C-alpha cells in the first residue's frame, strides 16, 4: 500500500545519483534489493514506478528487484536458516531468541545509464 511512497524515494535517490556531467541522461535499469520481510509488493512497486517516471530521465527504465530471503540466526546455538513460513523459532534447539540477519532490506543498489 505504501509502494507509491517507496517508488518516489527510489526515483529521487536514482535521479540524485546521475553524474552531473552526463548530458540528457537516460536511466535504463534500476537495481533494488528488497527483503521478503519488508512489506513491499514488487508488482505494485513496478506499477507505481512506471507511472511516476513518465517525462523523467527514468522513463522506461527497468526496475530489477532482487528479492532477499528471510534468513535467521539463533542467538543460543548459532544455527542459521532460511525462514519460509513465518515461524521464528530455532529449528535446532527450539529457542525463541532469534535474530533476523537478512530479509528486511529495502535498498537501491545501483543504476545503469545509457551510454
Amino acid at each position, binding site marked *: 500500500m505504501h509502494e507509491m511512497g517507496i517508488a518516489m524515494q527510489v526515483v529521487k535517490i536514482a535521479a540524485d545519483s546521475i553524474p552531473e556531467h552526463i548530458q540528457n541522461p537516460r536511466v535504463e535499469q534500476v537495481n533494488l534489493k528488497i527483503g521478503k*520481510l519488508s512489506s513491499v509488493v514488487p508488482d505494485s512497486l513496478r506499477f507505481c514506478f512506471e507511472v511516476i517516471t513518465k517525462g523523467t530521465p527514468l522513463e522506461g527504465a527497468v526496475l530489477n528487484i532482487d528479492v532477499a530471503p528471510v534468513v535467521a540466526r539463533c542467538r543460543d546455538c548459532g544455527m542459521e536458516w532460511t525462514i519460509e513460513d513465518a515461524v521464528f523459532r530455532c529449528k535446532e534447539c527450539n529457542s525463541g531468541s532469534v535474530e533476523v540477519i537478512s530479509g528486511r532490506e*529495502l535498498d*537501491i543498489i545501483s543504476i*545503469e545509464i545509457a551510454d
Partner: protein
Amino acid sequence: MEVDVARKILDTNDAHAGQNRERFAAAGVFVLNMMSSPGSGKTTLLEKTLVRIMPKIRCGVIVGDICTTNDADRLARSGAPVTQINTDAFGGDCHLAAHVIGKAADAFDLENLDLLIVENIGNLVCPAEFDIGENARTVVLSVTEGEDKPAKYPHMFRKCDSAVLNKTDLLPYLDFDMAAAEGFIHQVHPDMPIFQLSAKTEEGLSPWLNWLTTQVAENRSAR
C-alpha cells in the same frame, strides 16, 4: 554505464526518525507507537488507558487518520493534549512517516510529558516499515479478526514489543480460538508479552497498564 548507489530507500525517513528519537530522549518522554488494523479498538483502549494513568503519568497523544478528527475529539476528553494528523482527505498515506511525527511533536511541551502515544493509521502493513523514533511498539488485534493475522502480517508482529488482544467481552459470541491466536503470535515473535483484555468492560486492563507504566518508569530512571 553502471553507477553504484548503495543507499537505503527509506534513509530519509530513518534520518528524521533518528532526530525525533534524540529529541524525545533529551526531553525524557517515552514514545509508544500503537498500530493495528482499522476497528481493532485502539482509540477505546487509549481512552481507558489515559483515564487510569493520568495525571500521575503526564500523557500526550498524536492521532493519525486519513480523514476526520473524531478520534482526537474522543481522546481530548481525557484532558490530555491531543494532536490529530490527517494524511489526506481522499485516500492519503497509509502510515505516519517520521517527519510528520516530528512536526506534530512541535505542538507539545515535551519537557512536561512522560508519555507520548502515537495512534498510527489503521493498517497492519505499512506502519511497520516506517520508524518514527519511538521507544516501543504495540500491536492491537481484536478477537473479531482472524487468529492467523500474526502469520499473515509477520513483519508487524516481529517489530512490535507487545500485543493486545482486545474485545475479549465478545468471545462468547465468536469462534475465536485464543490459544491459536497466542500460538501464531509466539510463532512469529516468541516471548512477546500478550495482554488479553476488553477495553470496553476494562476486564484485563491492569496487566497492560502495568506493562506500559513500567516502560515509562524505566525510561524516566534511565535519564
